């Protein structure tokens, strides 16, 4: 594995977005992974509709929260094509699902995997490099106050409450860390990103990690 790896360097990560006062992190992380893997596959990077997932993933609760696994499972089972963000813009509230015809272009997933990588974060690095940005669930209670730097404390595992997108890692410095894209806008953290120490399952980052396949 390379000492450092960042999918942003390969133009495969869309800009940081802002979920606003809506518990839709689960949709942002899932859509973020899909649009990245789509770009890695040779397509142009384009922002796909988070609102479509918020409105249509019926097993989840829209702005009241949801599960990344359930959202991915729904996308896989229904072969629902995600349309672009401009065709189905984000509203930061749950609305009625808008359907598009089968002939309408969009991006569908073929499969996904979800694993617990606790104690195996090196293998998780391998998955990131091999498959693309990873969807993960973390304990983000202390992130309310985060300004920047590498998180090493104040996070628990097994109490996850927030979905994020892991886009890279860096092991070249004293503290190896994951590069994580959040969905709270660019004013938060390191221009919308948060760094989490690799090893020790900090914030539960390795508890439930998904890779998507298109």
């Amino acid at each position, binding site marked *: 594995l390379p000492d450092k790896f960042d999918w942003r360097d390969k133009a495969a990560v869309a800009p940081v977005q802002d979920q606003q006062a809506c518990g839709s992190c689960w949709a942002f992380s899932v859509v973020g992974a899909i649009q990245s893997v789509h770009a890695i596959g040779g397509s142009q990077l384009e922002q796909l509709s988070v609102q479509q997932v918020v409105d249509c993933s019926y097993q989840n609760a829209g702005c009241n929260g949801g599960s990344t696994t359930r959202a991915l499972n729904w996308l896989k089972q229904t072969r629902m094509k995600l349309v672009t963000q401009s065709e189905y813009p984000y509203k930061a509230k749950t609305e009625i699902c808008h359907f598009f015809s089968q002939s309408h272009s969009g991006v569908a997933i073929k499969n996904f995997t979800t694993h*617990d990588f606790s104690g195996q974060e090196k293998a998780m690095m391998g998955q990131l490099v091999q498959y693309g940005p990873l969807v993960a669930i973390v304990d983000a209670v202390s992130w309310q106050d985060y300004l920047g730097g590498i998180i090493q404390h104040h996070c628990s595992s097994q109490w996850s409450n927030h979905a994020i997108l892991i886009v890279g890692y860096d092991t070249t410095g004293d503290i190896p860390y994951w590069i994580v894209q959040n969905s709270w806008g660019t004013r938060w953290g390191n221009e919308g990103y948060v760094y989490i120490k690799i090893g020790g399952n900090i914030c539960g980052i390795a508890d439930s990690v998904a890779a998507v396949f298109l």
Partner: protein
Amino acid sequence: EVSSEEFSRRHLSFQRATIRHTYLNSFSTETQSAKYGINQFSDLSQEEFRDLYLGAVYERAPLFSGLSVKE
């Protein structure tokens, strides 16, 4: 424009946040360590923050076996 009641509530949340920051930063001993302080969420109570921004439901995942499906 907020009512005086809401202003008081937000002010209290803000004061509590500053106390939290002192505690959280006490662990930040290295230059690269995380820093905690005032940001756009500082006038929210911890409960409000959880309700508004932490919307993921955790579902247990199988332990990674180290073997791919092909293997």
